[in-house]
């Protein structure tokens, strides 16, 4: 065993520092948990930051109702193991209340509807800080995101008047009604996250590994066809393929990739050798070049 801490990865040190700043600077923080690999990594980092105490804030999942069942099962089990409170708020409730309108047509997705449910939940619980797993390497608009990103009463992001962040000083002072989105793994790349999951032997949902799935191909991407959620034309042929998911969003906006990576080691080598970026498999970003930036301004994560 090492006798000094110099072997600990600098990104982990930074993320733990950020987690502790959140707990110290805010009254009601929450960790936004999607069941995806990034938020699972956040949970591990939070565990490390406060050990031997429990994570001092709840987890919250905004459930679109279109999540992969494997993810939901995983989420419930993890929260139970940690002994941490899990809050779930449903997009379906926002639809039923007439606050948002379900999209229709072949690209219908509930992904952007999540924003309303999230903002309502922030108001309901009076959360002043929401910890999220966004990374700057994911997308061009996210490359400019701060670690502490202040949102106004409407949850909106004003990219032109962001607070400068110097050294590692994080300014969490806000006015009543404002809240802060916090991104502890801002500086991690996709490969950093996967390598960390491998090294720490963190359990992740099974859909991240290669499995046989009924799928169809549209616009060069592989869509899941194992449910009625994704709209499908009659001429779009369903075939069984060996696939896995690189990102776990909604079923309606997450494409699969062909893969035979059945273990974490194989996934890590696949990611290392692959040449398509992670968000390339996100159908929602392909809508337009500025798709992510527009959604962020409206309060999306």
């Amino acid at each position, binding site marked *: 065993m090492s006798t000094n801490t110099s072997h600990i990865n600098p990104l982990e040190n930074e993320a733990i*520092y950020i987690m502790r700043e959140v707990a110290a600077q805010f009254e009601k923080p929450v960790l936004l948990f999607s069941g995806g690999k990034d938020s699972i990594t956040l949970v591990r980092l939070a565990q490390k930051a406060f050990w031997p105490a429990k994570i001092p804030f709840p987890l919250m999942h905004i459930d679109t109702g279109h999540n992969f069942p494997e993810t939901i099962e995983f989420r419930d089990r993890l929260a139970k193991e940690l002994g941490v409170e899990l809050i779930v708020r449903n997009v379906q409730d926002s639809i039923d209340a007439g606050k948002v309108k379900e999209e229709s047509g072949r690209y219908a997705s509930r992904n952007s509807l999540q924003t309303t449910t999230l903002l309502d939940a922030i108001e309901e619980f009076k959360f002043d800080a929401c910890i999220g797993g966004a990374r700057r390497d994911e997308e061009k608009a996210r490359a400019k995101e701060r670690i502490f990103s202040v949102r106004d009463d409407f949850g909106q992001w004003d990219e032109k008047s962001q607070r*400068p962040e110097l050294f590692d*000083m994080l*300014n969490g002072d806000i006015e009543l009604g404002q809240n802060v989105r916090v991104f502890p793994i801002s500086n991690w790349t996709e490969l950093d996250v996967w390598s960390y999951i491998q090294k720490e032997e963190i359990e992740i949902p099974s859909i991240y590994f290669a499995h046989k799935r009924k799928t169809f191909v549209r616009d060069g991407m592989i869509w899941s066809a194992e449910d009625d959620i994704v709209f499908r034309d009659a001429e779009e042929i369903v075939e069984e393929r060996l696939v896995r998911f690189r990102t776990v969003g909604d079923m309606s906006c997450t494409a699969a990739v062909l893969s035979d990576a059945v273990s974490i080691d194989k996934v890590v080598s696949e990611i290392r050798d692959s040449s398509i970026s992670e968000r390339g498999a996100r159908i929602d970003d392909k809508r337009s070049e500025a798709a992510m930036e527009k959604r962020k301004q409206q309060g999306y994560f």
Partner: protein
Amino acid sequence: MPRANSQQLIKMEVLKIATAGSVDDGKSTLIGRILYDTKSLTSDKLEAIEKTSKQKGYDYLDFSLATDGLVAEREQGITIDVAHIYFSTAKKSYIIADTPGHVEYTRNMVTGASTSQAAIILIDARKGVIEQTNRHFFINNLLRVKEVIVAINKMDLVDYSEETYNAIKSDFSELMSKRDYENQNITFIPVSALKGDNVVNKTDAMPWYNGETILEHLERLDLAAVSNVGTPRFPVQYVIRPKTEDFHDFRGFAGKVYGGELNVGDTVVALPSQTKSKIKEIYAYDKKYQTASRRSSVTITLEDEINVSRGDMIVKEGDLPTIDKQFTATIAWMDSDQLKAGTKYVIQHGVNKVLAKVDKIHHKINPDYSGIEENVDGLGMNDIAKVTFKLNKPIFFDAFKNHRTNGSFIVIDTKNNNTVGAGFIQ
């Protein structure tokens, strides 16, 4: 579970680099070129660049499209905020803070340089050292960025002329004679970002240059040597009290170690109480260690039950920082509301916040080495000045030149909570 390759994959070295250049110096192209030549651009990103370059009618690949993120920037063709770009080699992970170079965005440059150990200053070979170059150098020197690469770009447009390169080098050396931080390492490299000369790969175009390429130089940098080392400082972020059966009396002080290392058994002093104790245990997660290395996030327990809370600082006995209710600092002002003498602000020094009053604005410092301006009654956006603050309670600081972390602070506006300035204690 087998853990093949995990050792190499978790990079222990992360080098942060700030970039500075004026509009059209080719900064975005340089970064795009680095990403392209290190094969860091993914096929879908490359496709998007090819598609857009074609639409715009270019006969080359416009690598600047790899970094210019926001819609406004694409419309105006300029970079308006700090963007972070990631790539890695077999040796190191790199984070580039892409900061804009126009006069009005000094604040972004200060921000980018504050977290960087290295900087790349771009000069257009056709224009040479211009007023902007002075500013870029001044700020990186003020922020004590250890390694500076002066990349003389667009060499292809001056026929790869050695004379042009030497003339620029000699003009820049004149600037160096005015610098305050003399131990800064400066390396000149002639490049063409567009053609890829001396960025990642060597070139035949300039046989007169035998030095390293930009990437070769960065790869060789020893991270321990380029980070500023001082004496150990442990600002307490959070007190961990689990109050569970197994850890009934556990009182752990969570924080990050800056400057040097701390060891179990060290006699330490807690500030501000100045109470002495010894380090009993050092934890990182559930594992105990003998030594807490520099920049690691740990939890420390002490032999004695002493009162320590967030904002306090644990230091080694005989190695105390300055404890004072006032200090003088060089500050970079970042807000459109002016800083005025007599105004109250919150100063955040590490994780510690105190109320402060501007006691005196001594003078403005022109960031282009053209001297100082006295009798100033207010500071505007992007002004740099020497200012004395008085505090409502003492803080524990070092001079910035001795301790980059414990010698810096940010200024927060009490009206809107915005970060409006950054300071470097004298």
